[in-house]
């Protein structure tokens, strides 16, 4: 099986985000692999181990944004591809999906494409479904478990989640799957893995390499700002005993009309 796992570099989730002269900044906070993507890499590695095959990490970003690719390689991915082109600056989700689809087509003979459920920066969760739609492959979102895969029959069975519960879905392959945290803990990169990843070489493809023109973007962001903090005046609830504190809190909540 040939599995592609899409990964993205993002600022650490503990970073404080600020906007300076219209530009988003996270100060000197570390850059990390998008935390959701780690579950997708874990799933890809397990599927390749169980059914034979190789895992390629695919990343769209600036050439120097290597953190996600290095992490996926250190976890055990066999290969990586970076897609980078100055013309991609300001791409919206549809444009990014067109580029990722073209890269998957260029990688060739892919059976499964895995994504994390969304990225922690822009939080849209659109890429997995839009890449699926562009490739005309089934889209299986929010998958917590791979029940079975039958490569010989090009079919797989997964459990995916919705508000009301879980769906057991049978699908043809190739397919695009987004993986949730419920899949299970991702492994830590081993020391050997980290060493291998630090020396790994991988191709960087431009749009010309993919044979496509810069896709146009419909969505623009005319303004990004920090949220206006309503000044919160914290009222401390006092009392001589837990019972009295509870009683005083109830009175405050009644007065606040939130019950």
């Amino acid at each position: 099986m040939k599995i592609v796992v899409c990964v993205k570099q993002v600022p650490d989730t503990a970073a404080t985000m600020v906007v300076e002269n219209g530009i988003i900044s996270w100060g000197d906070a570390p850059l990390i692999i998008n935390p959701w993507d780690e579950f997708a890499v874990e799933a890809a590695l397990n599927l390749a181990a169980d059914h034979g095959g190789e895992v390629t990490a695919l990343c769209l970003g600036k050439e120097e944004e290597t953190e996600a690719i290095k992490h996926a390689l250190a976890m055990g991915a066999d290969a990586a591809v970076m897609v980078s082109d100055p013309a991609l600056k300001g791409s919206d989700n549809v444009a990014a999906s067109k580029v990722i689809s073209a890269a998957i087509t260029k990688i060739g003979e892919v059976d499964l494409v895995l994504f994390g459920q969304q990225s922690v920066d822009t939080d849209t969760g659109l890429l997995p479904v839009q890449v699926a739609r562009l490739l005309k492959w089934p889209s299986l979102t929010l998958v917590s478990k791979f029940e079975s895969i039958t490569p010989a029959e090009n079919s797989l069975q997964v459990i995916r989640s919705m508000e009301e519960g879980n769906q057991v879905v049978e699908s043809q392959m190739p397919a695009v799957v987004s993986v949730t945290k419920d899949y299970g803990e991702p492994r830590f990169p081993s020391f050997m893995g980290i060493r291998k990843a630090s020396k790994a070489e991988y191709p960087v493809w431009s749009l010309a390499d993919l044979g496509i023109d810069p896709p146009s973007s419909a969505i623009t962001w005319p303004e990004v700002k920090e949220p206006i903090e309503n000044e919160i005046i914290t009222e401390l609830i006092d009392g001589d005993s837990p019972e009295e504190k509870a009683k005083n809190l109830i009175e405050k909540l009644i007065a606040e009309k939130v019950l």
Partner: protein
Amino acid sequence: MTKKILAYIDHFHGKVQSSSWEGLGLAAKIATDNGGEAAALILGEGVNNLTQQAFHYGADQVYLADHSILKDFRPEPLTELIAAAVREYQPDVIIFPTTTRGRTLAGMAAVDLDTGVMVDIIDLDWGGDKLTATRPIYAGKLYAKLNCSSSPEIITLRTRAFEKPEPDTGRSGTVTNLEVKLNPADLATKVLDHQEKASGVSLTDASVIVTGGRGTANNPALAPPDDLDEEGAEVWKAEKGFELIQNLADVLGAAVGASRAAVDAGYIEYDHQVGQTGKVVSPDLYIACGISGAIQHLAGMRSSKVIVAINKDPDAPIFGFARFGLVGDMHKILPPLTDGLKAYLEG
């Protein structure tokens, strides 16, 4: 000017996600302001009865496909029908709720219609030629304004960010049936089974949420069974702590949430996690028990209207975001708080 708005009604086997009505309410409001009209799009099997509700919630027209092939949620056939409805109705804007299904369908429809999506928006300005939407990014650490230069403009609404309209049972309208030309054999997926989720109030819909953190395991008065190892004893204690949280939630009709620390320690399932890598919520009342308030947790709940923090540590960052702070042991405070609220709400 935005004149024709199509609202997608998301449902599961005919049970509507209430945020769909928030979307239809917004569609009707824009239509009224701009002298236009609102239509609802209802796709499924056995969903005929939803058309009346759609009129009551503000639709002037309903586009309907009621067909056995649409019984289970499968995004591919639904996207085909959304595209078909758009060709027929020619809307300027399509509104989806940001449910798991709504997000998927909005994204796929955007590819078919070659347009863009503004996802999970919390505010909308429809005064100009084009919409200006506001959405949180980095889990609410920043806010972005967005425009979409193509048409139709697709938006998905964050649950509870827009008002749910009062139904007007006197309203009615016209129904247009969409032709379903799909053949089951052409579809690449099949839904084999559905596993119901254990009942409980959903976090994203809840108007009140009670959340527990690491502090749920810190009740020194409890003696865990002898046969448990250290980790087992900790989880056992935390489960007792979450029982107190569940009791309070039951009295308030609230959903139960948890911090990432509590989920990672195995105290409660991931489904309950609030925060940057969990669910982002904005209830009217958020009661945080034994939670210190890591930045990732705050990102997921700081837009709650009233935050109550109960924590032993007076220096916990959560107090800086709380309207009401209560320094004390949650295990001692929750029982009288639950009893007192029960007495008040029943009296």
